[in-house]
């Protein structure tokens, strides 16, 4: 039964998207909104049904369905095939449920935008592509979803195409993710060459039973990591995500918080057997993850644009997930992915509502003191913020971050045969990251909601928008209980769900580990209160924030490096190609022109010969005679 439902699951959003695109505006804004929400809603319902079927089945059961043979060629075969197992189960639940909530919110948020048909068309297409990515069992079929998601993010970032800056940001996003896609493609090519087929099962089996050489495995893992890094905007490729905030807020919420950026995490989690065999790549993932979470934290600390703060915070949180993947605890990564989807979506939607009501003002220093004008939004934002910071016991963020921290603490990297290093330094830096997270998010909360009143808020948030906010509040606060650290009543529902085979309980975990994880966010909150919360500190210039901002500016400088590098690269490329074009045009056209002028000069010369005078011709004949005779005589 499930085999029939899975393709239907993907078909619903796809059909909704086609309907919206083909109707091209004949349907009103409300009609488009309902069709979109219906499409994604159907997908959500189906995914719940399918998950119930799967969970009722055997523990390690999975559902395979092959739709049709895609490419069957000598030496390689690929099919359009879907697979539902516990990892993709979690993902489709996250994608469809969060997606549904965001679509409902967007129906209200975008209703007075003329291009709403195009917006919802792209959004539903995005959900369809994401579902293909998550459900694909053939890595090449996953690549369809992978690029489809990139295309939709390009179309949605550049949604308000009137402003060239938006479309430039969209193109930049697509180019950087495209670089990653090429790397991923090379990885797939390498795997396809060695194993002949890209079915996940076949690939993992070939890797585990040693059919692929060690260097091949690490090379493939490296390529796939590069692809994941670009798609999830990690350190070398993180410049495009802050600019991607140019898109409408629901887009930022759905694509750049909940789903697309986590695609990389999902891919590595899906291929964790492959990565387990490539120890150096695992270490690299962990290091890059840590680096990203620090860079993200610092950058978010100095942003003045509300949405950019959230963008950098996403980069930082995904950094946590990569750190977890690097340390081998991919279950923790997925758990954090789920909780992150909830509270980050909540933050983005709340921010969107705030911005809309503050007449599209995004600078936090000009927003100020909105808690009286928008009490509901304040509660939502604070809930999201606390979950993001990971305030102990009461928020989901705490549990997922705790799981990662314990995983990182217990890992031991076997870089080479005899030299292995424990995860303690990484653990310390992760803890610092948690502190920074709490700091920047509560800085934003205090400045926006508790500072002196800035702009006057207008209107009310429509009902359509408040419902999703409510749901997300509940999820981000209570979503974490399903996975408790051991010291507390050890409840491991989530990891049991994911991978029943390997229990994650570390009995000998020191108590102070959990305490550290709990105290650090509170410390961050306290420092933020001291710097930006107390009315006195706000007095002497909110922008400097008691000197802390200035120092962090320097720290944040070098997070712009890749940003400047990419714009420079683009400019260089454009200038180079223009110069080459002129050179090419110069070189080859000169060749053609030069050839032409020879012809003209030659013709002119000959023309003078035929001047019609007989004696001149006679002379030439005599000359010819002389030459002929000379040749005849001499040779």
């Amino acid at each position: 039964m499930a085999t029939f439902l899975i393709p239907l699951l993907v078909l619903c959003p796809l059909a909704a998207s086609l309907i919206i695109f083909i109707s091209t505006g004949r349907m009103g804004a409300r009609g488009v909104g309902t069709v979109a929400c219906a499409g994604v809603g159907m997908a959500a319902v189906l995914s719940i049904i399918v998950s119930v079927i799967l969970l009722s089945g055997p523990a390690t059961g999975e559902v395979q369905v092959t739709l049709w043979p895609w490419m069957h060629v000598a030496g390689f075969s690929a099919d359009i095939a879907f697979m539902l197992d516990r990892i993709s189960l979690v993902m489709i639940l996250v994608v469809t449920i969060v997606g549904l909530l965001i679509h409902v919110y967007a129906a209200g948020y975008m209703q007075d935008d003329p291009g709403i048909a195009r917006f919802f068309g792209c959004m539903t297409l995005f959900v369809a592509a994401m579902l293909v990515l998550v459900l694909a069992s053939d890595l090449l079929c996953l690549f369809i979803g992978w690029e489809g998601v990139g295309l939709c993010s390009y179309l949605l970032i550049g949604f308000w195409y009137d402003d060239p800056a938006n479309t430039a940001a969209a193109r930049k996003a697509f180019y950087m993710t495209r670089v990653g896609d090429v790397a991923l493609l090379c990885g797939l090519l390498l795997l396809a060459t060695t194993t002949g087929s890209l079915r996940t099962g076949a690939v993992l089996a070939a890797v585990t039973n040693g059919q692929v050489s060690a260097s091949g495995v690490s090379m493939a893992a490296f390529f796939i990591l590069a692809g994941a890094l670009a798609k999830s905007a990690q350190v070398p490729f993180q410049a495009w995500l802050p600019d991607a905030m140019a898109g409408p807020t629901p887009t930022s919420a759905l694509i750049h918080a909940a789903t697309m950026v986590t695609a990389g995490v999902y891919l590595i989690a899906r291929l964790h057997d492959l990565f387990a065999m490539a120890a150096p790549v695992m270490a690299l993932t962990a290091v890059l993850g840590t680096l990203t979470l620090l860079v993200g934290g610092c950058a978010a600390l100095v942003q003045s644009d509300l949405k950019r703060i959230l963008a950098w915070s996403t980069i930082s949180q995904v950094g946590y997930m990569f750190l977890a993947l690097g340390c081998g605890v991919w279950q923790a990564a997925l758990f954090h992915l789920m909780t992150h989807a909830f509270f980050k979506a909540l933050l983005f939607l709340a921010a969107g509502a705030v911005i809309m009501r503050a007449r599209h003002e995004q600078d936090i220093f000009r927003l100020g003191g909105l808690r009286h004008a928008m009490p509901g939004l304040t509660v939502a934002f604070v809930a999201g913020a606390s979950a993001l910071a990971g305030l102990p016991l009461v928020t989901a963020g705490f549990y997922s971050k705790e799981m990662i921290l314990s995983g990182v603490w217990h890992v031991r990297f076997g870089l080479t045969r005899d030299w292995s290093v424990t995860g303690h330094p990484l653990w310390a830096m992760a803890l610092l990251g948690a502190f920074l997270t709490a700091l920047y998010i509560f800085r934003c909360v205090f400045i926006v909601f508790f500072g002196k009143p800035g702009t006057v808020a207008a209107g009310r948030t429509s009902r359509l928008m408040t419902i999703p906010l409510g749901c997300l509040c509940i999820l981000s606060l209570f979503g974490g209980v399903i996975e408790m650290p051991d010291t507390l009543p050890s409840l491991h529902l989530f990891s049991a769900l994911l991978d029943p085979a390997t229990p994650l309980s570390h009995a000998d975990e020191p108590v102070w580990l959990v305490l550290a994880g709990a105290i650090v966010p509170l410390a961050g909150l306290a420092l933020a209160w001291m710097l930006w919360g107390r009315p006195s500190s706000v007095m002497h210039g909110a922008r400097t924030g008691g000197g802390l901002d200035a120092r962090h500016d320097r720290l944040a400088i070098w997070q712009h490096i890749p940003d400047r590098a990419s714009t420079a690269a683009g400019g260089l490329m454009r200038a180079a190609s223009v110069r080459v074009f002129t050179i090419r045009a110069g070189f080859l056209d000169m060749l053609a022109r030069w050839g032409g002028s020879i012809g003209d000069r030659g013709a002119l010369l000959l023309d003078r010969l035929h001047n019609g005078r007989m004696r001149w011709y006679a002379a030439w004949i005599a000359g010819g005679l002389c030459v002929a005779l000379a040749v005849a005589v001499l040779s």
Partner: protein
Amino acid sequence: MHALALLAAGITVMGAIMVITRRVAVHAVLYLVVTLLALSVVLVMLGASFAAMLEVIIYAGAIMVLFIFVIMMLNLGQPDSQREKEWLRPRAWLGPGVLAAIVCMELLYCASPLSGPARLPVPITAHDVGLSLFGRYVLMVELVSFLLLAGLVTAFHIGRHREGGH
């Protein structure tokens, strides 16, 4: 080379040179007639008496007379010969002269290896020429008649509008 042969050859060459160097057309034509007559003498010495006679009768007799007749009609006066003088300045004839000299040298150089024994040429009488003319070459004679007809028609046609003159 026998004295008479040398004399005839010398007159032919001198006549030819005089033809191309005269300013007045009539003098040139007369020198040409002298050249042709000397040439017929050479032909006789070659044993081609029939050809010599033809040369005298047709070439010197008919064609040269035609020449004289036309030149008289053109009644080239003093300005013409003055212009000829101006046309004959060294700048004009130096180039072609050199070219002609080169051609002459090359021809002479080519001719040298063919010097066979100076056998007494057995004269070829009109009888032999007549036999071969209307034997093997009867078709060619027909063609020549066509040629003559064409020449006649052209000369007549071009000359016809002399007084109309459009």
